[in-house]
């Protein structure tokens, strides 16, 4: 990390402003191991699984078929699902079915909502027309649309994608809008003083400055997209991770339900990593900056 060091007043060299530090590690002692970050991470995770296993073994949450599944049973169930077909699809097929819905719905929303948000921030007429409609529909939870969308589009893919688009549209648009509104106004002055026109202000200040906010919106949208796809699949589906969970519930197999939950978490985490990687690629300046 670069240091905010003072300039060297004596010489004209300024290359010595970044000061590197060598950390003296010292001897390995018990205290050092006990306070080590990675050691504590391991302890907390092992403790979590042990507590889970203990709760399952001692039947605290009821015995029989509805009991809490032990961790190894969940793993076992996932291995079975990965090899044997459930409703003509293996686990991977179900993961892909859900991911596909998320990606399609999320992409449609992002492609429409981000430019619309930018437009609203840049043009007050667009803003005046779109904003009241948006404010009217914004507080409505996307999941409340499930029933009507099944009536309109049936139980196929369209209704699920529709729910995801509705859910992810709001944060995409809001963040793009706020991203532009919160740009430091003096940066526009800089462009104008350097000989730029209105077009240059938008191209060289507006867009790059709102990138971090847009990506924050995309991240929020992505987690909402997974919530929406799960809700839609729980209501009606023949494939997807939500379907696995519903099947687990109907068959009284807690291991299947928990397995489905774990895979959803993993899939959502994976897509989040993809967006983070894209963000790092597209805005390398943002790292280490707080509050742009």
């Amino acid at each position, binding site marked *: 990390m670069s240091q*905010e060091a*003072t*300039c060297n007043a004596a010489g004209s060299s300024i290359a010595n402003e970044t000061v590197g530090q060598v950390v003296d590690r010292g001897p390995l002692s018990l205290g050092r191991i006990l306070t080590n970050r990675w050691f504590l991470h391991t302890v907390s995770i092992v403790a979590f699984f042990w507590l889970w296993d203990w709760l399952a073994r001692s039947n605290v949450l009821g015995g029989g078929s509805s009991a809490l599944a032990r961790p190894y049973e969940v793993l076992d169930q996932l291995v079975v699902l990965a090899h044997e077909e459930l409703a003509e699809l293996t686990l991977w097929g179900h993961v892909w079915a859900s991911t596909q819905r998320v990606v399609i719905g999320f992409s449609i929303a992002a492609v429409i909502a981000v430019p619309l948000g930018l437009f609203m921030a840049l043009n007050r007429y667009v803003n005046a027309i779109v904003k009241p409609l948006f404010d009217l529909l914004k507080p409505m939870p996307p999941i409340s649309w499930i029933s009507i969308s099944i009536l309109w589009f049936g139980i196929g893919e369209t209704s699920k994608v529709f729910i995801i688009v509705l859910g992810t549209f709001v944060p995409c648009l809001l963040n793009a809008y706020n991203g532009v509104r919160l740009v*430091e106004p003096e940066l526009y*002055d800089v*462009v*104008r003083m*350097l000989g*730029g026109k209105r077009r240059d202000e938008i191209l060289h200040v507006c867009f790059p400055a709102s990138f971090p906010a847009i990506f924050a919106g995309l991240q929020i949208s992505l987690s909402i997209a997974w919530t929406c796809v799960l809700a839609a699949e729980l209501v009606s589906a023949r494939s997807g991770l939500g379907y696995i969970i519903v099947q687990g519930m109907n068959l009284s197999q807690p291991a299947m339900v928990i397995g489905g939950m774990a895979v959803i978490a993993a899939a959502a985490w994976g897509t989040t990593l993809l967006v983070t990687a894209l963000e790092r690629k597209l805005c390398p300046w943002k790292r280490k900056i707080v509050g742009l």
Partner: protein
Amino acid sequence: MIECRNVSKTFIQKGKQEVPVLEDVSIDVQANEFVVILGPGQSGKSTLLRIIAGLETPTTGTVTLDGEPVTGPGADRGLVFQGYMLFPWKTVLGNVEMGPKLCGLPSNEVRDLAMHYIDLVGLSGFEKHYPHQLSGGMKQRVGIARAYANKPRVMLLDEPFGQLDAQTRIFMEQETERIWQTDKRTVIFVTNNTDEALFLADRIVAIEGKLPGRVQRTYTVDLPRPRDLTSGTGFTFPARPGSFGTGNGVSPEPR
């Protein structure tokens, strides 16, 4: 070269309340002259600079540059901001290249100009750095190089070192003098720091301390360059601008 004729500016706050910021300011700046506008905070001096830059329009009065009236911002005036205002998404090189690029120069000329001015401000080797990797002093060097790269007829500096610590500030003042001597331009420099004004100025325009800002007095500084900030130049700094004595290189002009 630059003429401000009876410039006044009144801001309107909350729809009704009028706040007079500048009143009847007239300044003449000669070519290649280093003029410092000196005044305390909230005296309208930054507004005056923004009017010369074309970012604000005067309520009454006119500003002319080489006889042509200033009607808006333009590349013939280079502005250096108090808060640096670098583009965080661009590298040092990208920031400095911005001006010539916006003015439509061919890309090889843009690169040459940028490299020349990055070298002039002493940032060679930092071209690929992003602003957040630089210290305050280095950021303002980028700001100066960026304004210089357009080869403006006038450089306008708005309290450029106000956010720096005292040591860096003195160093940057020396650097400003060196850069100005190497690439002479007309400079209008706004500050609230008397030492800074005395170190840099050919002429000091003192602005009165309360709104609306008026030109209190103008002083010619005849001290030989380069001046020495640390060992004393034979005069003591007065507590208030405007109370300079005579006979020590600083002389008030007749009103």
